[in-house]
């Protein structure tokens, strides 16, 4: 089906909300967070120009969830269809990463898979990339390329909606009365917008440009003290890992209820000091700089070795949130320059 045109968002979102719970971005201070869409509310919905502050991971892998009940097991909670509106290309890439971890290996996370199957993804083009956005480092684009059910592109007089899956096609067919055909001129406008945004993204990041492929930088930097130097400003708040759409470490803990026991699964952070410590007291990453190094090594080297893709989408949320002002682009740039000074641009890979 060809992309279709709609002049206002409300009828479109109302149609989605009729079928399932719909979550939409809402501005809170200077950021967007997700809220449940209420068709009866008077407030007009605006399309977020940039990714939201909170991440799509919260819909698939909640902060805290029930992992098991014993001695008598219970059926896992029922997951109903839901839709998330306004996701960006970086959010879709982060879903791809989480899928590798929770849905594509020999052990499959039942609840994750159920949530994933029931999620209707409505993505949208980026319009105004943030200062911290650096998805172009990871071949990211300012618009969704795959992994969406529907994609919305804002143009001057309305919105272009395009299906990216069978579910999306079905929706557009069912609600064809809401949409008009999209003339070629509007598609050209959309493409022009996309190019403009991409250019702005590249301009924003010009000062951080790297000479060496990121994986090579990180794998050659085992001995570097840049990690220790950069970690000096870290206050161990762990916000970087919580706000990251791809970080997926978790902590299992037990609770005692009146007549049963549970295992709970809660987000954890590899930046936490006791994270890797064992009961006897040994801790492979006692030092903060080592934890920062491990976080970046995991994202940019180990994950790639295991799954064939980077575990960073360049969304820049960790940069925005860091109380110590640590900027991953700057860490990479410093490592890049250090290697360049040493004339080391070839990879010495740890197998």
């Amino acid at each position, binding site marked *: 089906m060809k992309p279709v045109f709609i002049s206002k968002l409300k009828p479109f979102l109302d149609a989605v909300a009729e079928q399932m719970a719909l979550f939409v971005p809402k501005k809170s201070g200077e950021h967007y967070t997700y809220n449940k869409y209420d068709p009866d509310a008077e407030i007009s919905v605006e399309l977020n120009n940039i990714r939201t502050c909170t991440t799509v991971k919260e819909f698939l892998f909640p902060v805290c969830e029930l992992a098991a009940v014993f001695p008598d097991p219970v059926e896992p909670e029922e997951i109903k269809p839901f839709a998330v509106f306004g996701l960006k290309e970086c959010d879709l890439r982060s879903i791809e990463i989480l899928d590798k971890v929770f849905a594509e290996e020999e052990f499959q996370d039942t609840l994750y898979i159920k949530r994933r199957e029931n999620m209707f993804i409505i993505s949208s083009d980026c319009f105004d990339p943030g200062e911290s956005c650096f998805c172009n480092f990871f071949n990211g684009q300012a618009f969704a390329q795959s992994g969406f059910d529907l994609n919305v592109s804002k143009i001057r007089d309305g919105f272009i909606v395009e299906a990216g899956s069978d579910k999306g096609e079905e929706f557009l067919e069912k609600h064809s009365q809401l949409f008009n055909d999209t003339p070629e001129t509007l598609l050209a406008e959309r493409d022009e917008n996309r190019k403009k945004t991409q250019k702005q993204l590249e301009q924003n990041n010009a000062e951080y440009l790297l000479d060496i492929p990121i994986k090579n930088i990180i794998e050659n930097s085992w001995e570097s003290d840049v990690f220790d130097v950069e970690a000096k400003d870290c206050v161990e708040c762990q916000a970087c890992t919580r706000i990251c759409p791809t970080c997926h470490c978790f902590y*299992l803990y037990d609770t005692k209820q009146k007549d049963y026991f549970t*295992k709970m699964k809660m987000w954890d952070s590899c930046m936490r000091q006791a994270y890797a410590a*064992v009961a006897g007291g040994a801790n492979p990453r006692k030092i903060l700089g080592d934890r920062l190094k491990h976080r970046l090594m995991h994202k940019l080297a180990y994950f790639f070795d295991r799954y064939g893709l980077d575990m960073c989408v360049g969304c820049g949320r960790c940069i925005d949130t860091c109380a110590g002002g640590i900027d991953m682009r700057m860490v990479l740039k410093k490592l890049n320059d250090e290697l360049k000074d040493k004339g080391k641009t070839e990879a010495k890979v740890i197998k």
Partner: protein
Amino acid sequence: MSENPYQPVNGKIVDIIDESPTIKSFVVVPEEKIKFETGQFVELTLPGEGEAPFTPSSPSTDSEKMEITIMKAGRVTALLHQCNKGQKVGIRGPFGNGYPLDDFVGKEVYIVGGGVGLAPIRSLFLTLVDRIKDFKSVVCRFGSRTPDDFIYKSDLFGPWQKIKGVNMKLTVDEANGQWKDNVGVVTNILEPNDVDIKNSVAVVCGPPIMMKYTTLKLLEFGFGAENIYLSMEKNMSCGIGKCGHCMIGKFYVCKDGPVFTYEQIKNYPDIWE
């Protein structure tokens, strides 16, 4: 395995054996059979309190019951030490890779163990002894802080030493009045001619510092890094390579280990910590 990897199998502690002042063995009977390979580990849950990873010390040929030897080291292990017979527990697993016994066939198996590291080694030892003719010999060098700190004393000080095909030497860091055997750390009783290095595999399990110096000594003897098997102790939690706590470099110890060859992990700087 249960479809939900976080769901424990219910079980019960049926016997408790005092091994040393800080170590007890728990005989656990799960409600469903749990078949494991020697060297794999399980997560033992004390309901409502927490779980911790242990490699069973019983041979893998017994899937009806499981013996788990536990040193009082942290919160969960201290609580387990207070438990009595009849205590209900949960067991998840088995997880990870055990010792590749088929690769050991026809070779001398050189086992170096220390302290509570003898727990996984007991399982391996009994599994090897069960098919002792498959191996050229089983050469054991075990150490402990004091004679009292040795676990499995009744087996170790007598019957195991008499098994045909087994060559065993023991040492303690500090002797007491009755001890007539070797004194000194376990690396002191390792000799280059203990085994025919060209046709041997080495298995090392014990405290990190002992594993480090044993590995260095074995390399010095001429062992290839690919023939040294290490049972790594990290903070294994989920057991399925997801939660991240046990990572050594790119490896998840819970899924890719806990048994690794030194060759696999030698380039990571933090393996002994």
